[in-house]
């Protein structure tokens, strides 16, 4: 090789190396940015919440008073509302989603499988505000006029669970919010469960059938134990969504910072309080208290989501290693 082509060659190689270094560092920077995003969110929120947390200390979590006039703020009512609405929503949505997933994987005729599956996946993409306004304009009036009076008459006088169903039928309140949440997370949990059920190897199911098991016995004794981790992971992801959901709840919860024994009474959740009050909050302590609510929500959902992702990750690894 003569001198000239060697020089050309090396300048080409140098350009390639430079390009490699630039591109590789660009991707690395972008990836680290994702990491920094979570750190940034944590720092910004704790920073904003600091005045309120320093002022009320542990009392912020243990008191349910929320009075902007006297500037006394406690998160207990909002935390309670967040947890109770999500729990009721999961109590409704999980069994129904399980049914949908079983139907889609084991029961549905082949021609129905795809349309129903696709419909459910598309519905999971419908924005939550749609569920919110439907809850406010359609579901709440129905509940107020028919369902809630009936519940009050039927369950109100009972000794143990009676107090949950007493008081006037407002239409909007904890129960309505929970129902809207349940409908909203339903497509999401169903499609995760279906995906998990489909990871069960056919051989396992076939050996169940070979032993003479019924479809239900195969589902309950083969499919469910095999996909247990994935099911719990999917439920936790749904729970994470329900806990942090804002718009579906804000419309129908009634935004009352109190803990009522009745599920029919208005309440509030963390996200609904922030959405309702943030832009109207006067004074730095009020704003800071709302951000502190955000910190609590972040802690709650972060732990739920982290557990869920960890479980789903384990399932993925197992699926990979069994291939």
């Amino acid at each position, binding site marked *: 090789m003569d001198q000239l082509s060697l020089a050309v060659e090396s300048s080409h190689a140098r350009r390639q190396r430079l390009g490699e270094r630039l591109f590789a560092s660009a991707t690395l920077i*972008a990836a680290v940015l994702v990491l920094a995003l979570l750190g940034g969110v944590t720092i910004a929120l704790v920073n904003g919440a600091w005045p309120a947390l320093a002022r009320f200390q542990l009392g912020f979590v243990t008191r349910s008073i929320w009075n902007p006039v006297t500037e006394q703020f406690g998160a207990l009512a909002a935390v309670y509302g967040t947890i109770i609405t999500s729990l009721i929503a999961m109590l409704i949505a999980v069994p129904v989603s399980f049914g949908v997933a079983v139907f889609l994987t084991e029961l549905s005729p082949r021609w129905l499988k795809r349309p129903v599956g696709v419909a459910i996946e598309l519905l999971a993409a419908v924005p939550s505000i749609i569920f919110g306004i439907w809850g406010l304009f359609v579901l709440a009036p129905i509940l107020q006029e028919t369902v809630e009076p009936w519940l009050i008459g039927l369950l109100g006088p009972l000794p143990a669970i009676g107090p949950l169903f007493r008081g006037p039928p407002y239409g909007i309140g904890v129960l309505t919010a929970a129902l809207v949440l349940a409908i909203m997370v339903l497509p999401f949990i169903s499609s995760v469960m279906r995906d998990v059920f489909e990871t069960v190897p056919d051989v396992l199911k076939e050996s169940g059938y070979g032993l003479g098991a019924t479809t239900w016995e195969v589902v309950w004794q083969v499919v469910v134990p095999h996909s247990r981790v994935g099911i719990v992971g999917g439920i936790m992801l749904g729970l994470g969504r329900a806990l942090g959901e804002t*718009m579906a709840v804000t419309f129908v919860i009634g935004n009352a910072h109190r803990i009522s024994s009745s599920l029919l009474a208005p309440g509030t959740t963390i996200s609904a309080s922030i959405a309702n009050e943030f832009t109207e909050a006067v004074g730095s302590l009020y704003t800071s208290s709302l951000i502190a609510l955000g910190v609590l929500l972040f802690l709650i959902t972060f732990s739920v989501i982290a557990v869920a992702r*960890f479980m789903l990750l384990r399932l993925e690894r197992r699926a990979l290693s069994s291939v």
Partner: protein
Amino acid sequence: MSRSLRRKVTNALALALSAVATVIGLTCLAAILWTLVSDGLAGVSGHLFTDMTPPPGSAGGLLNAIYGSAALTVIGILIGAPIGILAGTYLAEYGRETRLAGVIRFINDVLLSAPSIIVGLFIYQVVVVPVGHFSAVAGALALAVIAIPVTVRTTEDMLRLVPQGMKDASTALGAYPWRTILGVVYPAARSGIVTGLLLAIARVSGETAPLLFTALNNQFWSTDLAAPIANLPVVIYQFAMSPYPEWQQLAWSGALLITLTILLLSIAARFVLAVLQPAKRSR
């Protein structure tokens, strides 16, 4: 009852319940879509797309909100997508199974399902407070933060589908990884990346909570990115909560518009993946 009969009855009962659950679930969801279409269509007219959001008690349209939503979404994606695609490339091509990549993957999954109102609070703290007022830029940044994890996830998944043999062939020709990625991997995964972008747009365009205290709202026509800007989700929120029938009607029409847009985007995403991807493989 004999044992075998009991098993059969249990089986029939359980399967019937699962069918009932499916019917109940689909009925609820169909009811929502039905209300949305019937109530939303009632307000659809030319004015919806030519008039501004009205003051209480008078008729109007959603032009400024539609424009604002489009602008916020476009800017948000323009900021978020490149970061997301690059980070996804790192995870799929450079980081792979390293510890750092594992941590980033996990954090990204957490961000993917983090409550969007938290993102709103975050941008409020780092953009709105220092600047001193709400702005379209803040709204777009909030949407970008939401778009990033979605794009990272889909990009990584799609790049990993590209056969290792194609990358090896490029490497064997003496190409550096960046040439391989730009010249072989990206073109091969193009339809997957486009799908990811469409899904990110769909996800972002219905978000309400993060816009409430970043972009805020604006009753008038505004293209000023430093000022609050009208946008469909927040307009729907405010109008639906109001006692005025005209506003509530506009809220339903806006809701229908958003849902149709998102459903179209989701269907387009499936179409791109289903139709373009196999065609490429068979070549």
